[in-house]
């Protein structure tokens, strides 16, 4: 599995909040895509409720995952393609390494794919002496910079044109320019050479269709079409849940995917790949491999509380409306998936205790569910994760976190059931708060262990006399 740094959530979030460039980029991204996607849903002939239909379609697909995957596999094999089933990230990576070794691959061109980030494909190929080039412009920029994607659809959203200009001068040896078309042209030129020289192309899978026996990839740049057309070998990586039964269902999912991802009615390129080049064809890969990945998904499938998460198509619409993502940015989430989708999926894939900050950090405001192209109840699952964390869960190997917190709440529950005691404590606190540092009338800092509460906000002091006291006096 790729690097997981979910433990650094708080630290990274602080860094994100303190970065004015990132904040500006995120707010402009959310402004455009958040609104644009809502507008695009409204303009659907069926209206935004098409998302409810899509949810049903995806649920039915997940409930019949075995049948759909078997149907897809039979068709792809019949067309001369290979299908491999990988239980773990390592199995998937090893299979790809074996295909690369057998075909004497030296250069791989990659289409953007979050699942290959999840399984850590790039470092494994590089360790085997294979050059790997990301070809999505955003991914290419962050690969050159040695960073990680910070948004599922717009991976380089955190980079300014000035930073990109400096990077291209250093790595591509171009004359300095900050003009986006000129910078794009420089990358186009450099990557065209890579596409033409590559031995293997890799891609993700946006959605597969069992009935027709195809996987599909969608892109605006054309890089995935290049990577799946020009090299001798194409290896596609697919999370096992990315499938629907038939083309009429697929049609609904694709329309919503394009709207959720970029407020578009249709991505520039959608390719339906059912196998390798056929005899008589002059282009297309000689070999086509589909790697279907479990890597923890069957555990999600087995839990009725979280099965719904497998309906997700990774369009990233939830990132574009999330008030938390919009402030802290994608790097805080510490894994391939950021924003609300990451806050649910990452703990389920990498460990609930380990990634607890991700779902504790979300606000439960519900914006993600309204934006979700598949109408997934993300807030419900965020809460379910918090419940697992609070009480522990043997199935998910969750240690109940914060026994002190549990104790404090038990104390609170006991305290508020006694009117006398409660009022006494209030009185003591009202007297004690006079010792606390203030800004104007507001309390600036609470003493330990409550100091976190005033770390980035001031607190209203308790009233001198409580409401009940005033009420009694009125009588």
């Amino acid at each position, binding site marked *: 599995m790729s690097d997981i740094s979910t433990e650094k959530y708080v630290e990274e979030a602080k860094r994100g909040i303190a970065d004015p460039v990132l904040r500006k980029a995120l707010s402009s991204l959310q402004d455009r895509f958040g609104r644009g996607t809502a507008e695009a849903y409204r303009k659907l002939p069926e209206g935004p409720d098409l998302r409810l239909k899509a949810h049903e379609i995806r649920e039915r697909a997940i*409930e019949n995952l075995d049948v759909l995957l078997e149907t897809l596999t039979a068709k792809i094999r019949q067309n001369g393609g290979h299908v491999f089933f990988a239980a773990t990230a390592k199995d998937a990576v090893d299979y790809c390494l074996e295909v690369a070794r057998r075909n004497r691959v030296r250069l791989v061109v990659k289409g953007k794919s979050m699942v290959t980030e999840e399984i850590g494909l790039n470092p494994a190929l590089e360790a085997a002496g294979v050059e790997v080039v990301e070809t999505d412009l955003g991914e290419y920029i962050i690969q050159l910079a040695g960073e990680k994607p910070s948004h599922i659809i717009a991976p380089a959203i955190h980079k300014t044109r000035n930073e990109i200009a400096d990077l291209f001068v250093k790595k591509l040896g171009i004359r300095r320019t900050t003009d986006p078309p000129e910078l*794009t042209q420089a990358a186009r030129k450099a990557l065209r050479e890579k596409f033409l020289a590559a031995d293997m192309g890799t891609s993700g899978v946006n959605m597969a269709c069992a009935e027709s026996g195809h996987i599909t990839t969608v892109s605006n740049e054309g890089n995935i079409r290049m990577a799946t057309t020009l090299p001798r070998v194409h290896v596609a990586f697919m999370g096992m849940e990315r499938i629907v039964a038939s083309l009429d269902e697929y049609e609904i999912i694709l329309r919503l995917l394009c709207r959720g991802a970029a407020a578009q009615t249709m991505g520039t390129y959608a*390719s*339906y790949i059912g196998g390798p080049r056929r005899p008589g064809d002059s282009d*297309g890969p000689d070999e086509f491999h589909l790697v279907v990945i479990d890597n923890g998904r069957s555990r999600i499938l087995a839990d009725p509380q979280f099965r719904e998460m497998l309906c997700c198509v990774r369009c990233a619409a939830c990132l574009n409306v999330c008030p938390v993502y919009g402030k802290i940015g994608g790097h805080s989430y510490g894994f391939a998936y950021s924003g609300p989708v990451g806050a649910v999926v990452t703990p389920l894939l990498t460990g609930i205790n380990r990634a607890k900050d991700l779902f504790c950090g979300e606000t439960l405001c519900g914006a993600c569910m309204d934006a979700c192209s598949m109408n997934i109840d993300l807030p419900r699952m965020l809460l379910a994760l918090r419940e697992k964390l609070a009480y522990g869960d043997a199935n998910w190997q969750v240690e109940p976190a914060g026994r002190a917190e549990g104790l404090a709440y038990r104390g609170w529950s006991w305290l508020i059931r006694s009117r006398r005691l409660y009022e006494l404590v209030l009185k003591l606190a009202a007297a004690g708060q006079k010792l606390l540092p203030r800004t104007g009338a507001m309390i600036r800092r609470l003493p330990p262990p409550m100091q976190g509460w005033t770390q980035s906000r001031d607190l209203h002091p308790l009233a001198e006399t409580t409401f009940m006291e005033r009420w009694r006096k009125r009588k």
Partner: protein
Amino acid sequence: MSLDTTDQIRFFRRIRTALGHAAEVPRAAGQLFAEGPSAEDLQMLDRIDKRSTTDRQALLERLIEAGKPINLKVVSVPDLAAASSAVAGLVAEKQPEWGEAKSVAAWRHPLIDRLGLEEALARLQVPLRVTQPINPSAGRECDQAERDRQRAGIIASFIGVTAADFCMADTATLVMRNRPGQPRSVALVPSIHVAVITLDQILVDMKELFALLRWDERFRQEGLSNYMSFISGPSKTADIEATMVHGAHGPREVHLIVVAE
């Protein structure tokens, strides 16, 4: 490569167990896949069949409108001769992106063959490379050599001329199924892609397309082929400070010529 059947068996066992089914027994498809067209499908097929020239003209207007925001240039021409001049016009006007010399790649396709591009381009002294189907019986090495030659030709071309199977008006999307002699790289690697279609190839949307591909006997056999492409306008990116730029990796320009005949 081995089929790694043990991995596969275990994989499906895990899924069936997670879903609460017997782990060892493959389940039947049941009602998951339709055996025939629905009433809605039949209605749609009928509507496509009975579409009048006036209806088709209206669809063309819709296509032109949908093409505007995505920078797809649509021109409507009365006949093949006019289509041929339109292609020649682009070849004369546009400049190559990667080299000095102009050359054009075109599909071997009944509609493209009838354009007479060979002569039209000869007048401009621009060579035309027509992508012939590969003869698989010619032997492996011969086959590889011919494919390499075609690939080099396509890479050297600044304009690629293709036909298309359909065009969906609502999203201005060209639909191309893969066939020998019609390599997909012609619509991808050259800087400019010119597609030529006839008016009757325009459909409303994906619903109509999939109804035809699934249930119309004329298209059902070939289905989606092993590689079907949707192309909606030129390649684009907004990855640098969200500024829209055309020509990220695929063609910078896409021109669609609709022949009214």
